[in-house]
């Protein structure tokens, strides 16, 4: 709607199809960008506050760094303009070349991804680092899929999803350390507990619209975290709960002793610490696939369709006799339950939980995974989790710049593909052939 005035000076519309701009104008653009960069960096980078040995603050000047940053911006902008034209960095919902290929290969892509996930422990030869990374990615895949039910399907903006993850983790941690419940009993209880809290929160607040719901869920997340942090007698406060029992293989503990009543002994294997890691890997893979399976099945059924209809038009739903509150609540509770499962897994894997694992930034990352993946798309969410979490780990060498890059990548992906990696929706049922529906038509909910 603001397209007409989008390009201030009105020059050079049309982006990619146009020949690249003449060099003088590109230089001018780059110079403007560098000037802006100077304005931004001059104070914050050029003058660094440092605590001197006497305890007072002093300033250290770093003009070389500022010059370098401005130079990078200048060169970057120049290269970009010359290479792609002025309007290259514009959002698009049209599937990019690789997205088209992905869709063509879609039928094979998801199974290929699944197969890769299944064989990873075997292929990796028990490489501890790779498996731990796999477990981490799968945990976020599961959380993304869980939140996808709430945000992607039902269109309810939940900024406090991590609360349910935390409730699940603490439920299992406390049940197992206080009452000695095993993982396989603690897991469903943790899910039920999270779902219960989901209903408790959801019931009064689900009639709120849009951003009001967002802030209430955010507030709920913060409340849970603060309570976990301060209710020392129950949760141990900032020290958390430690000594959470590790999961057993249906009653057979993983132990190095090789006794007959341990996993290795029972199956006649050489005791190895990697057994537990591999087991944890398959455990989270199974939990994630359970989430996926339930979601996919529900999408083809009245409840899932009602969620999507709710996202499209709540008023029309009411006129069709759909109980909007119950439908929203079911999405909220189900999403919370899977969050709780993931939390219980997290607790048993770490053997330790503390409030700092459940901060707002976790909610934000999970939400970003859902939106970057493409609201409602199961494959998209999995790919986004892989890219974001896996990529984050790959850039370990960046050190303190890692989070900076992470945030920057989030911004850039969103600007280039506001509808996420997979922006289309697949119908749940068809008389003939199922054809993908363009993201422009699909709603994203107001609630």
């Amino acid at each position, binding site marked *: 709607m603001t397209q007409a005035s989008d390009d201030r000076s009105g020059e050079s519309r049309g982006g990619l199809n146009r020949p690249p701009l003449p060099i003088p104008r590109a230089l001018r653009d780059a110079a403007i960008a560098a000037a802006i960069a100077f304005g931004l960096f001059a104070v914050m980078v050029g003058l660094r506050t440092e605590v001197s040995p006497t305890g007072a603050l002093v300033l250290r000047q770093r003009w070389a760094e500022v010059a370098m940053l401005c130079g990078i911006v200048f060169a970057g902008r120049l290269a970009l303009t010359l290479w792609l034209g002025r309007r290259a960095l514009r959002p698009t919902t049209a599937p990019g070349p690789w997205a088209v290929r992905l869709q063509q290969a879609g039928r094979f892509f998801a199974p290929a991804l699944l197969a890769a996930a299944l064989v990873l422990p075997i292929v990796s030869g028990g490489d501890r680092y790779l498996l731990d990374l796999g477990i981490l990615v799968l945990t976020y895949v599961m959380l993304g899929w869980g939140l996808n039910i709430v945000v992607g399907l039902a269109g309810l903006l939940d900024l406090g999803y991590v609360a349910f993850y935390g409730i699940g983790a603490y439920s299992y941690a406390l049940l197992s350390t206080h009452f000695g419940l095993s993982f396989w009993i603690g897991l469903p209880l943790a899910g039920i507990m999270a779902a219960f809290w989901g209903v408790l929160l959801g019931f009064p607040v689900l009639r709120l619209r849009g951003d009001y719901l967002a802030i209430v869920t955010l507030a709920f997340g913060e409340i849970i975290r603060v309570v976990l942090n301060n209710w020392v007698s129950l949760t141990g406060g900032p020290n958390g709960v430690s000594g959470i029992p590790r999961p057993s293989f249906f009653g057979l503990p993983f132990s190095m002793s090789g006794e007959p009543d341990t996993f290795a002994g029972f199956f006649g294997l050489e005791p190895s610490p990697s057994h537990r890691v591999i087991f944890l890997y398959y455990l989270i893979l199974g939990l994630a696939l359970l989430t996926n399976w339930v979601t996919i099945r529900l999408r083809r059924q009245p409840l899932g369709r009602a969620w999507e209809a709710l996202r499209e038009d709540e008023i029309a739903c009411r006129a069709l*006799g759909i*109980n909007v509150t119950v439908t929203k609540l079911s999405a909220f509770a189900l999403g919370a339950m899977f969050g709780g499962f993931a939390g219980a897994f997290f607790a048993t894997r770490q053997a330790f939980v503390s409030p700092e694992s459940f901060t707002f930034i976790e909610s934000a990352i999970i939400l970003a995974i859902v939106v970057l993946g493409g609201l409602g798309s199961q494959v998209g969410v999995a790919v986004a989790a892989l890219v974001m979490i896996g990529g984050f780990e790959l850039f370990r060498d960046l050190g303190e710049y890692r989070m900076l890059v992470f945030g920057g990548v989030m911004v850039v992906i969103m600007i280039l593909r506001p509808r996420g990696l997979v922006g289309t929706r697949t119908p749940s049922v068809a008389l003939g052939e199922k054809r993908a529906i363009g993201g422009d038509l699909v*709603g994203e909910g107001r609630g």
Partner: protein
Amino acid sequence: MKPPAARAHRDMILEVANLTMRFGGLTAVDRVSFTALRGEITALIGPNGAGKTTLFNCITGFYRPSEGAIRLHRPGALPVDLHRLAGYRIARSGVARTFQNIRLFPGMTALENLLVAQHNTLMAASGWAVGAVLGLSRYPAAERAAIEVARRWLLATHLLDRADDPAGALPYGAQRRLEIARAMCSSPGGPALLCLDEPAAGLNPRESEELARLLLEIRADGTSILLIEHDMGVVMKISDRVVVLDHGRRIADAAPAAVRSDPKVIAAYLGEEGEEE
């Protein structure tokens, strides 16, 4: 106050008695009473701002009336006080509606739109989702039946070849028809009362013609219709009875021919007539 009508109860489908709706200081609907008869098409007309859509929203539960009563009389059942029910319960008791500015689920296909309309039936068949997820229920059969119902209405609205297209991508006239089809799917065996808010708005003459035929078919099927419409051609051709509102009050309630020659109605429309159609 005065009884709404002297007509026999058993013929009624909808009874509106002394309905008043106020927004702050503004009285949008002022002590309106009328009845709609079973198996008839009742048209609700009036100049812009007469309170027609407000009345509709009261009947279908989007507004809670300030005063008065709205009763649904279904054959063989006790009367239902619609003004006391939550919106979604009104739909469940057999009142379906369409909207003046079409409200489809644009990102879902035409077929999906019609399946969402059958939500309550399907939900019960799926064992409130739990059964169907586990694959333990009679859900597949119920879904096949629901698709059959949907197919029937897609056929009746000439949309069968667009069944797998997203509703938002359909042409305007097709969207209007799909919305009616969706309303018709919303109760098992069709709703008792279908409320249409300006279904002919934006249609060309040929489409209006088709719409009129569709509404007559729906009536023949046993669904009573309450209709807000500006297209007098359609109203006069298909209505059995016409209720005229002006400034929130009922000024006439008669057969189409009588309404047409009613001086009060003509007076209400005068001034608008010149610029309209």
